[in-house]
């Protein structure tokens, strides 16, 4: 795992709660809002299960710690999106909270429903970008969610040992988490 220069993290008392909200003006309509929210809820829960950080959807987007939106091309942060594939999303290190996804992608929550060859799994990208929002940079470990690339129609939503060790060195461990439970879930998934 790798940190951003200066090792920035959310500097709040642990256990902490971070709120997230969806930009009402920058959403996609190819997926239902409930499907989008469910994908993000699952993605946040992956990280919350290993660190003492709780993620809650904010009532008011303007006051959310993490602001999520879908944008096209040049959207004002100096990092324009590029259309289909290429760059899928980007987010900022702590404590900015900006989380931007490329609206031009064919975002999917279920590949049985979305048959496009260029479909991108929303939850996988969300898990990766949340890692950035928490303070992790790109990992060289291919199996880690913090590895920078994701193929179309690929799903990668399970945190690896590398991801967990990285984020726990920033925030400590969730008291309910043990590496043996991770191993058990891996064995269960492989079965």
């Amino acid at each position: 795992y790798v940190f951003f220069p200066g090792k920035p993290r959310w500097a709040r008392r642990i256990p902490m709660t971070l709120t997230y909200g969806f930009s009402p003006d920058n959403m996609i309509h190819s997926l239902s809002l409930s499907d989008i929210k469910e994908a993000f809820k699952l993605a946040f829960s992956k990280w919350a299960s290993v660190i003492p950080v709780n993620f809650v959807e904010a009532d008011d987007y303007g006051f959310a710690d993490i602001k999520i939106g879908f944008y096209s091309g040049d959207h004002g942060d100096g990092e324009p999106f590029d259309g289909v594939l290429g760059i899928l999303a980007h987010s900022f290190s702590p404590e900015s909270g900006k989380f931007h996804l490329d609206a031009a992608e064919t975002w999917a929550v279920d590949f049985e429903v979305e048959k496009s060859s260029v479909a991108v799994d929303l939850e996988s990208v969300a898990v990766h970008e949340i890692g950035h929002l928490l303070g992790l940079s790109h990992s060289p470990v291919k199996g880690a969610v913090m590895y920078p690339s994701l193929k179309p129609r690929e799903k990668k939503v399970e945190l690896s040992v590398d991801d967990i060790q990285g984020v726990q060195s920033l925030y400590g461990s969730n008291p309910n988490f043990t590496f043996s439970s991770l191993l058990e879930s891996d064995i269960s998934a492989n079965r």
Partner: protein
Amino acid sequence: RPAPEFPWKQLTETTVNNYHHYFYNRFLNSRRGSHVSGLSEIKRYFRYFGYLTPQAHYNISDDIFDAPLESAILHYQSKLGLQVTGKLDFDTLTQVLSPRCGVPDKLQPSPTLHATKN
């Protein structure tokens, strides 16, 4: 302020495959000393993701596979767990073409994507 130029073309679902064929045909097995039309695209890619740091007198817009580009590719291959060859082999080009996160792999002192809140 004007947005920095991103190296990739604006692709649509129907042009993705054509672009990938063009990309492999053009750049596969390029190595130091090669001169390949369009190689500046590759240079811009590596600069965008932090592997090719801006230097005085370095021309990023030419199509020459020079020492800085070779060094950038060596770092890229090492960083992303690829075979370290220093050339644009198949696995490296495949990785370059893979969809990815826009956050640079090698962060410079003050890129916008790791700006802290002030």
